[in-house]
């Protein structure tokens, strides 16, 4: 077992375990914390794949931004000590069944499929390269999606403010 394999399995184990805990924990703040672990481990996977820039974004935006936002709203809407009621079995069983069948189906398909055995590059993706691509509008340039995403974020920000604003009435 190479070190990479080991690291991958480690991260995977963390991701799977904490994912399960995220969706089963009855204390909501803990669930948010477990989600944070999952997202951080995902960032670890990105590091493993030599996407350092992406991993950094994952940490900053996801772990740093979104999870904080979620925790913030949890604090606004519930008591920390509050335990969520457990879902009824009538809901759990069909959901679990669907999830298992779906997962099984996907895994079987993945294992049956013969992916080409490319080795993959171990090179680090340079930030200069990323930056050039983002503001490039030629081939392999992402200026347009970048701008679109900027506008989307702006719109989301305004929308969130308008929605959450206190009504005057």
């Amino acid at each position, binding site marked *: 077992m190479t070190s990479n394999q080991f690291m991958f399995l480690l991260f995977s184990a963390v991701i*799977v375990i904490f*994912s399960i805990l995220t969706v089963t924990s009855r204390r909501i703040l803990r669930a948010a914390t477990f989600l944070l672990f999952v997202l951080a481990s995902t960032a670890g996977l990105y590091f493993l794949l030599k996407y350092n820039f992406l991993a950094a974004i994952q940490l900053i935006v996801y772990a740093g931004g*979104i999870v904080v936002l979620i925790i913030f709203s949890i604090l606004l809407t519930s008591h920390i000590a509050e335990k969520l009621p457990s879902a009824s079995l009538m809901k759990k069983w069909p959901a679990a069944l669907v999830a298992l069948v779906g997962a099984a189906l996907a895994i079987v398909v993945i294992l049956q499929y013969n992916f080409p055995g490319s080795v993959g590059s171990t090179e680090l993706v340079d930030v200069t390269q990323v930056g050039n691509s983002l503001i490039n509008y030629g081939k392999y340039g992402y200026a347009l999606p970048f701008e679109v995403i900027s506008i989307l974020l702006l719109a989301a920000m305004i929308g*969130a403010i308008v929605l959450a604003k206190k009504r005057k009435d």
Partner: protein
Amino acid sequence: MFEGVPLSWFLILSTIMFFIGVYGFLVRKNLITILMSTELILNSVCINFVAFNKILYPEHMEGMFFTVFIIAVAAAEASVAIAIIINIYRRIVNIDVEKMNEMKY
């Protein structure tokens, strides 16, 4: 294969994560936990993109950029969703998804 890690491992991991997210989406009652399940689902998709990019087309960067954009979209979505949740909470002092069924027949 990436330094000994086959592509299928990534895909299986993301599949498991995805269906855990689906399970959470279907089972949890609190709107915020449902939002968290959605984040799990998005994240599993990101892993897929990145792994495909790195192992099948290492000379390109589409998968990576797609992931970047997904993260941005997730951020936007989370902010709007939370604004909505807070709004709902203000109205009915509850964010239990089962209680929000005004749209039925």
